[in-house]
């Protein structure tokens, strides 16, 4: 498995190309204050993870200039395992991404660059 260090607060389970299987670590700083009684990873925290993974794969990638679409369907709690897939679409100048867990889709979105 050839993986760069992962963003703190996440653990790598596996990686195949631009599909990453990760675990949200117990006590992840990415959930600090969101929310103390029932920590979950925020949707923006998920975008941040995709941003980080994208920059590992494409260090020269253009900065995003718009969030065209974001749809949230499930929550991720510490300990959850999930898959992240993203793809660059040069013709449309956008990045699409999807996060899925065993129960189904967590989040899907599209960022323009």
């Amino acid at each position: 498995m050839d993986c760069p260090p992962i963003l703190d607060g996440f653990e790598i389970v596996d990686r195949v190309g631009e599909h990453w299987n990760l675990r949200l670590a117990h006590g992840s700083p990415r959930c600090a204050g969101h929310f103390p009684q029932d920590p979950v990873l925020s949707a923006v925290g998920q975008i941040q993870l995709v941003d980080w993974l994208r920059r590992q794969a494409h260090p020269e990638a253009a900065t995003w200039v718009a969030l065209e679409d974001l749809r949230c369907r499930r929550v991720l709690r510490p300990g959850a395992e999930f898959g992240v897939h993203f793809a660059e679409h040069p013709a449309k100048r956008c990045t699409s991404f999807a996060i899925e867990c065993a129960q189904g889709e967590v989040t899907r979105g599209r960022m323009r660059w």
Partner: protein
Amino acid sequence: MTHAYPPIVDLVPHRPPCLMLESIESWAETGLVCRARCRHDSPFRLGSQVPAYVALEIAAQAAAADQALRLRARNRTPAEALQGFLVNAWEVVLPPGALPNDVNLNVRVTLDATAGPLASYGFEVSGGPTFAVSGRLSAMTAAPDRVFPS
């Protein structure tokens, strides 16, 4: 006349270091204007910078505060028993630079539509000489198992 609004921590379930709202400037049935700040210990920091899209989290927190004030105005369920969840966002325009560090940010959320615990807003987050993000979002305030399946 200056209106006294409840402390932010009485309105939203977020807490530092995630909590970025600082004070409410005004609230009406049409929406909310507030101040926010992204501090040095923010979990949204990537390296030395905070990406511009983190303004979406600030707007979502403002939407949660607006929904809590709306519930209080109707003497409904105390907001502290609920959580706020971003359901979707679209047409979010980002500036080329990062979100300014430790700078007062002006936040405005304008209610577009509401149905029960679900509400849609237009939003603007701005601060510093050039930083401005605008877009649309919908958020739901409820116990998490009522928002999303487990």
